[in-house]
């Protein structure tokens, strides 16, 4: 167990393993994304109230749901960094923050575009779900600037880990905001597999496929940027030098 754990934390081990996994992950991502988008845009029947704006929700729900994974991920990685000083965990945490900011921004933008058609408003400051998601976006920008502001990388890792743990509280607020405060944003509809209903099986299957696609995209993008981070932080080591030379010879 401990051997496995320290091996997993080794940047070299991760770099080599991710090289084997990447083609499969990219392949699966392309398949799920294509099926999800084609299904949502061509086959999804219009909702009886929302019309074709329900197609926006397929993207919005998938991106929004995934955006909630960032703070827990960064908190776990941060804890591993603090307790076991694992370098790889900190590299993952560092690269998760900008991607999480993207996810939060796309969640806000797609939600806003949907709201302008369905609610008749782009933004509502009194809505708890909207404001807590905006807060998550700013928190992630805070994590990014905190890291770049601190020159000492160990202090930066520590501070970001603490902020990530605090950010998890906000994730809980986002998740339950629609139930605690009954404002504009509707609670998530229960999964309903009776065909013919407004949120029928077509919608749920399309959304489920899109959620898998977005999670795969999140994994691929994070692996790519973490590999870059490894190349930079381990540039003094022999194995990285060999990779650099080998890549140069191939180009």
């Amino acid at each position: 167990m401990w051997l496995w754990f320290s091996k997993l934390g080794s940047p070299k081990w991760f770099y080599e393993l991710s090289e084997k996994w990447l083609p499969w992950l990219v392949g699966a991502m392309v398949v799920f994304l294509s099926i999800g988008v084609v299904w949502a845009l061509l086959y999804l029947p219009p909702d009886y109230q929302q019309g074709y704006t329900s197609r926006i929700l397929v993207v919005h729900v998938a991106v929004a749901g995934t955006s909630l994974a960032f703070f827990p991920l960064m908190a776990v990685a941060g804890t591993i960094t603090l307790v076991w000083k694992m370098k790889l965990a900190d590299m993952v945490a560092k690269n998760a923050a900008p991607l999480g900011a993207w996810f939060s921004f796309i969640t806000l933008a797609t939600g806003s575009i949907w709201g302008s058609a369905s609610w008749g408003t782009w933004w509502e400051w009194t809505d708890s779900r909207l404001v807590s998601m905006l807060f998550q976006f700013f928190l992630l920008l805070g994590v990014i600037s905190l890291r770049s502001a601190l020159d000492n990388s160990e202090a930066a890792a520590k501070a970001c880990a603490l902020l990530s743990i605090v950010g998890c509280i906000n994730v809980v607020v986002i998740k339950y905001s629609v139930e605690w405060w009954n404002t504009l944003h509707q609670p998530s509809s229960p999964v309903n597999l009776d065909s013919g209903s407004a949120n029928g099986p077509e919608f749920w299957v399309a959304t489920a496929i899109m959620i898998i696609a977005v999670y795969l995209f999140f994994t691929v993008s994070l692996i790519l940027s973490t590999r870059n981070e490894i190349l930079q932080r381990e540039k003094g080591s022999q194995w990285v030098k060999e990779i650099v030379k080998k890549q140069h010879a191939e180009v």
Partner: protein
Amino acid sequence: MIEAIEFSSFSEFLNMGGYAFNVWAVYGLFAIFIVANLLAPKIRRKSILKEQYRRIVLNEESDANESG
């Protein structure tokens, strides 16, 4: 397969039941979001490899000069 498609013409598909702007804006953003976050690390990787190769070559040259 074809019959199950919700639209009977391409312009009807583009129109999205009157919500063309909203639906296409969201899917356009989604496409930019995905492409940007896959391309950026790819481009970054290229520049990192290039920069580090230059550094290795420079170091080897200076080592050779010192010993020679």
